[in-house]
């Protein structure tokens, strides 16, 4: 029986995905789930914009608006942007470093399912009384005050569960990159996207524990009578703000660094040039991450920390502009002297530069503490972060989707539709968010569900809403593109764009389960490019062809995550129902039981035999 290629029925495919530990399939799962949540978050954004299109509108009033707003921010950051980045990390990083899989395939699956069930739990709130409504930052005093329904409990427990998943994914990538690099793949030969993944994972490792702790506190206060944030009993709400932003600021770099990584790959590929200033790019990435931990309080300038703290954090924040600038100029000079091919991914990469710089420089304006007293909690901030997030992260996700789609699924996306998507999205993006700078400057606070007429905000808001619909149209066309090309798209070659430089383009599209029949020997930066320039078609192998060891699939990751999902319901309702506590305990028992099973059942994986590999490779070569 061949373990590599088999035709299967729907049920078998489903079971395959539920139990898979293959990083490429987990990438598919992340892409699908993250994509779904992006549509959800986008839909919520549309609702926001519809409500704000005109003054005094009553489409989403009061508490309901706050729920949509909170869920938009939370969904986009935790359930869309990060998982989509994980999708590309999973699909690409192991192959880029010449590995057969990640370090912990089982944990990789566990990470995904935790994220998925956490997100599912969070969104169950819509049907169970109401979603969280205290903003994605869930500041403690309001989060404790809004006890009319369980919204905020869904936030604390849902994010807790998906947060564990993220932490696991982070550790997994760190170990993969440190331990599993192919021979010759030194740190300073790693592709930029791998570097970005590495650094972002380190950020995850240090940034998520404070969030975990903050969420524990909030859960204790809301569900178990704790007093962390209750001033009457000696508590202090500012603790939440600090813990949240100690996590929250690195979080935005967790999002943007991989985005930078994606663009670095694209710039090099479509300029046919190696990345300009590679080592300073690496250095800048590390520096951004390092600074990222010293600046969190720039979100709290108006809290009243005093001028000394404000001044320190202001200056530290500004410093981040320097390494980021280094990157911007290195990208420009990667293109300089290159032979630029304007494919869809390159469109996004090129558009990213002015868009992101605009967002970045408004960030530096925000860092000017005394001036931030004006900007803070106004639409100027909304404009800033959508410029960096949409102009940076979302552009990168769209670019990555077009760039790696052929690698992940074996078919090219349609370029014409891709470019239409780009233009609609690009125009819509600037239309939506540029004007918001001025809304903020003319006094419009953020997180308002409505505004009164005659304050000078009508036109701006209307334009902004129109822009959002452009982005929606773009998204719809992307979906159409996917459907059409999946049905009858052009088959992608291994080196789908013809100019691939890194190892993922050396294997077939989609890659075989084992990635490399023989682990390659890496002989320089841009390993594939090096070989191509020497006129070779294939990589230099570092080992003889032999049996390949593969990890076993397992259903346990799903069960463990499902247990926490059940437990979360129990604890949410344990105060007012009799079944709450038992259900909570049963859920935990399911999880710990599955962990126990994992611990006592040996898992040695299996081998794909040399002959099978050979057979498969031959088929690929002929195809």
């Amino acid at each position, binding site marked *: 029986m061949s373990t590599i290629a088999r035709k299967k029925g729907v049920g078998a495919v489903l079971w395959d995905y539920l139990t898979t530990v293959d990083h490429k399939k987990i990438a598919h799962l992340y892409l699908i789930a993250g994509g779904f949540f992006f549509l959800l978050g986008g839909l919520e954004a549309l609702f926001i914009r519809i409500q704000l299109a005109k003054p005094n509108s009553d489409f989403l009033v009061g508490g309901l608006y706050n729920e949509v707003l909170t869920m938009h921010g939370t969904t986009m950051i935790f359930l869309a942007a990060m998982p989509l980045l994980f999708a590309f990390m999973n699909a690409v990083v192991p192959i880029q470093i010449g590995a057969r899989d990640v370090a912990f395939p089982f944990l990789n699956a566990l990470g995904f399912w935790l994220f998925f069930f956490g997100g599912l739990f969070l969104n169950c709130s819509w049907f169970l009384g109401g979603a969280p409504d205290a903003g994605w930052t869930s500041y403690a005093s309001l989060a404790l005050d809004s006890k009319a329904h369980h919204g905020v409990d869904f936030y604390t427990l849902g994010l807790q569960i998906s947060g564990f998943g993220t932490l696991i994914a982070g550790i997994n990538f760190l170990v993969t990159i440190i331990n599993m690099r192919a021979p010759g793949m030194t740190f300073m030969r790693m592709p930029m996207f791998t570097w970005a993944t590495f650094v972002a994972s*380190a950020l995850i*490792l240090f940034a998520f524990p404070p969030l975990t702790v903050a969420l524990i506190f909030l859960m204790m206060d809301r569900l178990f009578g704790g007093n962390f944030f209750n001033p009457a009993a000696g508590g202090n709400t500012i603790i939440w703000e600090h813990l949240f932003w100690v996590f929250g600021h690195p979080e935005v770099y967790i999002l943007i660094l991989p985005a930078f990584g994606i663009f670095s790959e694209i710039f090099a590929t479509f300029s046919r040039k190696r990345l300009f200033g590679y080592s300073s790019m690496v250095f800048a990435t590390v520096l951004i991450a390092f600074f990222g931990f010293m600046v969190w*309080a720039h979100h709290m300038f108006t809290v009243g920390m005093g001028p000394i703290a404000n001044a320190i954090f202001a200056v530290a924040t500004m410093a981040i502009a320097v390494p980021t600038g280094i990157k911007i100029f290195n990208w420009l000079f990667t293109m300089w002297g290159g032979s630029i091919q304007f494919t869809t991914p390159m469109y996004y990469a090129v558009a990213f530069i002015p868009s992101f710089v605009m967002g970045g420089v408004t960030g530096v304006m925000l860092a000017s503490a005394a001036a931030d007293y004006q900007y803070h909690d106004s639409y100027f901030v909304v404009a800033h972060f959508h410029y960096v997030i949409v102009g940076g992260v979302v552009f990168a996700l769209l670019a990555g989707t077009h760039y790696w789609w052929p690698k992940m699924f074996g078919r090219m996306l349609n370029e014409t539709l891709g470019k239409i998507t780009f233009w609609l999205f690009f125009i819509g993006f600037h239309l939506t968010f540029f004007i918001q700078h001025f809304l903020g400057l003319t006094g419009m606070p953020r997180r308002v569900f409505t505004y009164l007429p005659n304050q000078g905000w009508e036109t701006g808001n209307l334009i902004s809403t129109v822009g959002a619909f452009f982005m929606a149209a773009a998204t719809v066309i992307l979906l159409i593109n996917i459907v059409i090309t999946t049905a009858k798209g052009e088959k992608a070659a291994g080196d789908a764009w013809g100019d691939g430089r890194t190892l993922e383009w050396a294997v077939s599209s989609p890659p075989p389960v084992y990635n490399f029949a023989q682990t390659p020997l890496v002989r320089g930066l841009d390993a594939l490019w090096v070989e191509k320039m020497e006129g070779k078609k294939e990589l230099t192998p570092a080992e003889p062809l032999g049996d390949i060891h593969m990890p076993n699939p397992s259903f346990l990751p799903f069960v463990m995550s499902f247990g926490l999902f059940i437990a979360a319901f129990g604890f949410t309702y344990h105060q007012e129902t009799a079944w709450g506590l038992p259900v909570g305990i049963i859920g935990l028992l399911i999880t710990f039981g599955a962990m126990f099973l994992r611990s006592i059942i040996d898992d040695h994986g299996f081998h794909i035999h040399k002959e099978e590999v050979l057979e498969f490779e031959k088929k690929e070569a002929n195809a």
Partner: protein
Amino acid sequence: MANQTNSGNERIDLMYRRRKNAEEMRHQVIAFVLMILLTLIAFAAVGYEEFSHWFVIPFILLLAGVQVAFQLYYFMHMSHKGHEFPALFMYGGVLVMLVLVWAFSTVIWW
């Protein structure tokens, strides 16, 4: 401390390794004795009423720091080869810890 040898002769290797392990174990026992001692001193310093807070608190914190270093470097072998990344990330964690503690004891007020 390199613990890997290759004399080619397994018996000799084994003896060498055993000796190495025993020697290391001895160091660890010494570390343990010191740790107990440090703990005793810390408890005694607190129990002894004469010392002022200003002395005792930094002093016992210092003792704790030394003890933790013993744990990490002797018991957990962080000085051994192959522990570069563990050390890097532990120090990273410690750095974040220092920043956090600094912030929580200065910019949260009542």
